[in-house]
């Protein structure tokens, strides 16, 4: 589906696909529904060996990408995650690895040690994200103040943190005065309380996490990098840029995943229309159905297009990356669920049953709607960017 991939990228995507084919069949997913983590021990480490954790981290810091465009590479895995509705903390783990990878060497021992464990898959991370001041993308309320020895004291609550119940470590992006700070917090830190939630996805997990005066030692605070390597449009300080970049990465990966889920639902439904008969004809012979499949095919192609455009812009460090990432969320976040719900409709009664596989993908796109800012919040963010540009 993706034109212009190199042989190595295709190989990477195929390896992930085969791995997930073998381990994430719909029957496997149903069996995992009762599993607290949503996946079996060892699974995440195996995935890490396939390259799920390294693409956003420089080689010097223990990472490495196939093509040099790390997000483009990683998005191929994200797409396969969506197509299989696969479990695992793909997005938070990679946002955390990316953030640590930029600063582990300069930040010293603790950060480097966590990075190593994240890259190998020995540890998993959850990401607690506050919005930079003056912005509203549904972030958590997290504030950091100065602690002893260059450390921080963080307070607040993240009502819904992906993979938060089982994470070994949290990447916390918190407000500090008019800017942002980033730190890693051990799951065992005093004052950190978490509560497992039930959610819409069969194998994705969320938790409510509270931080009650959690003290973070100085060596677990990410230093503000000199070169943000990225022009954010809304904030100018380097830590703000990091927050913006984290957000864009999460948005891109999440849309890639949603596109994969859309593709799976679409393929299933196209096949169904050919095999299901009513009035002595296949459903696929009715123009009403054909036209809806055509609309869906267009939404799917458009979703791919804007997601890949955002990924390319981010990999290239282009200034329009934020705009494209928000547009991707605004578009895919709306048309993804519309597409899969229409697939349900075209399936008829069987479409709303647990035994049918369609809901696996409906769950995945539905989970994507509010995370990292809703489509409506991103539309307003885009309007803000427009206003700023027109005014200048």
């Amino acid at each position, binding site marked *: 589906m993706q034109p212009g991939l190199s042989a190595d990228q295709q190989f990477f995507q195929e390896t992930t696909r085969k791995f997930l084919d073998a381990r994430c069949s719909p029957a496997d997913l149903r069996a995992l529904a009762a599993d607290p983590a949503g996946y079996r021990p060892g699974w995440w480490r195996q995935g890490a060996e396939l390259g799920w954790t390294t693409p956003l981290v420089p080689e010097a810091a223990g990472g490495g990408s196939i093509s040099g465009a790390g997000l483009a590479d990683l998005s191929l895995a994200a797409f396969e995650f969506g197509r299989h509705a696969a479990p695992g903390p793909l997005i938070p783990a990679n946002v955390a690895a990316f953030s640590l990878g930029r600063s582990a060497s300069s930040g010293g021992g603790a950060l480097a040690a966590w990075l190593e464990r994240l890259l190998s898959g020995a540890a998993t991370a959850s990401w607690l994200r506050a919005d930079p001041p003056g912005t509203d993308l549904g972030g958590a309320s997290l504030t950091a103040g100065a602690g002893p020895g260059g450390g921080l004291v963080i307070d607040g609550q993240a009502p819904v943190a992906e993979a938060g119940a089982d994470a070994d470590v949290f990447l916390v992006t918190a407000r500090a005065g008019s800017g942002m700070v980033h730190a890693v917090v051990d799951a065992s830190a005093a004052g950190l309380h978490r509560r497992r939630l039930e959610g819409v996805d069969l194998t994705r997990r969320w938790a409510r996490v509270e931080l009650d005066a959690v003290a973070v030692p100085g060596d677990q605070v990410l230093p503000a990098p000199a070169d943000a390597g990225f022009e954010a449009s809304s904030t100018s300080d380097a830590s703000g840029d990091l927050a913006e970049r984290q957000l864009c990465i999460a948005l891109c990966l999440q849309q890639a995943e949603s596109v994969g889920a859309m593709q799976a639902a679409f393929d299933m439904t196209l096949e169904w229309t050919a095999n299901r008969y009513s009035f002595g004809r296949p459903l696929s012979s009715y123009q009403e*159905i054909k036209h809806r499949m055509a609309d869906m095919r267009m939404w799917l192609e*458009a979703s791919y297009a804007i997601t890949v455009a955002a990924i390319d812009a981010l990999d290239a460090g282009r200034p329009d990356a934020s705009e494209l990432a928000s547009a991707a969320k605004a578009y895919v976040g709306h048309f993804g669920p519309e597409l899969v719900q229409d697939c349900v409709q075209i399936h008829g009664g069987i479409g709303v049953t647990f035994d049918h596989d369609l809901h696996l993908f409906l769950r995945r796109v539905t989970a994507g709607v509010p995370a990292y800012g809703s489509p*409506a919040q991103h539309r*307003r963010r885009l*309007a803000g960017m427009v206003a700023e540009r027109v005014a200048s």
Partner: protein
Amino acid sequence: MSEDVESFRRRARAWIRANLDPAPQGEAGIGRARSDERELARVARAREIQRALFDAGLAGICFPVEYGGQGLSLEHLGAFNQEVAGYDCAADLQIPTFTPCAAVILEFGTEEQKRAHLPAILRGEEMWMQFLSEPSGGSDVAGALTTAVRDGDEWVLNGSKIWTTGAWWADWGLCLARTNWDAPKHRGLTVFMLRIHQPGVEVHRIEMLNGNREFCQEFITDVRIPDSDRVGDIDQGWTVGTRWMFHERTAMGGGSPYVVRPAGSGSAGLVGSGDSLWPLVVAEGRSQDPTALDLVGEAHTLALVGSALTPRIGASMRSGALNDQASALARLYSGTRSVRYATIAYELSGQSGLAWDPEAGDPDPGVGYLMRQAACIGGGTTEMARNVISERVLGMPRETSHDRDTPFRDVPRGPAAG
């Protein structure tokens, strides 16, 4: 060795800045009513610009050199599109003259026809129209009733074409006509090149609901055309027609190599971007209104998605990942996007879109809204695009038809067909 993209870009930039005027606002097309004098002046100016581009070696960037083009790549065209953003670059010639008309001649014309017409087109001397739609129907293009009868070395044409935008000032029509009423629908058609201004071709103007009078209907009576003006084989017009429709859809979706489409780099220059709506929001005092912001963001999203979609589909078609019918995806997108944009613009304009001071006001959003559906009709309807996507891209069953294997003269026609 052809010129590399960057030196071409520099050359184009220098020439454009020295020679072209800023693009006139809202001038071309069907958007609003204009006087005939203004329309003719605009067309004359378009021809001049095209001639100047030709003389500067910048016309027909992706057309072959032997027919007056530059023989360059899509990347060169992309660079030109960026450089020409904001300048007047003969918009009227692009569609339908360069594509589908010139594209069809390039693909199916004889060597003589190509040498006679393509350089003239690229010099701005010939403006072409598509003579496809008929009063009896436009979606069912192959159902053309206009008839050509062979008479020695000539053909005699009779019938009527309709909805041609600008035929009253254009020079030539690419005309699909029936040459065999005993063959089934698709096997009795032939394509001709028809001089518009000649005895026997009567051009009537049709007023659109916004007052624009560019729509035309042509009445063709005993017009004689030399056989040398036939494009493609006799009765094989649908072979030509299929590619013709392809070029049209590609153009409607914005991915044609044969037309110039000014494209600002970044979103400021995007067609239908949120930037173009922001002045309305400010004028209505709604720049803090979440509903208005939501609508601007939605329009902006759709514009950004559109500008990502077209090149993606083009690349997928070139790589073979999608077949060439996939241009219908871009056509469907652009139609539905334009419709949504028109709705949003009218909503954002508030009452100033409803009634305005003719001295000062700008009627665009209200009148644009009235014309909204044109974007989903002209260039082949979005329903036809959905048919193409479902049948030719997704392989779903074709609609049953009552005209496939029957001699065309026996095919049922509704009372409206005349």
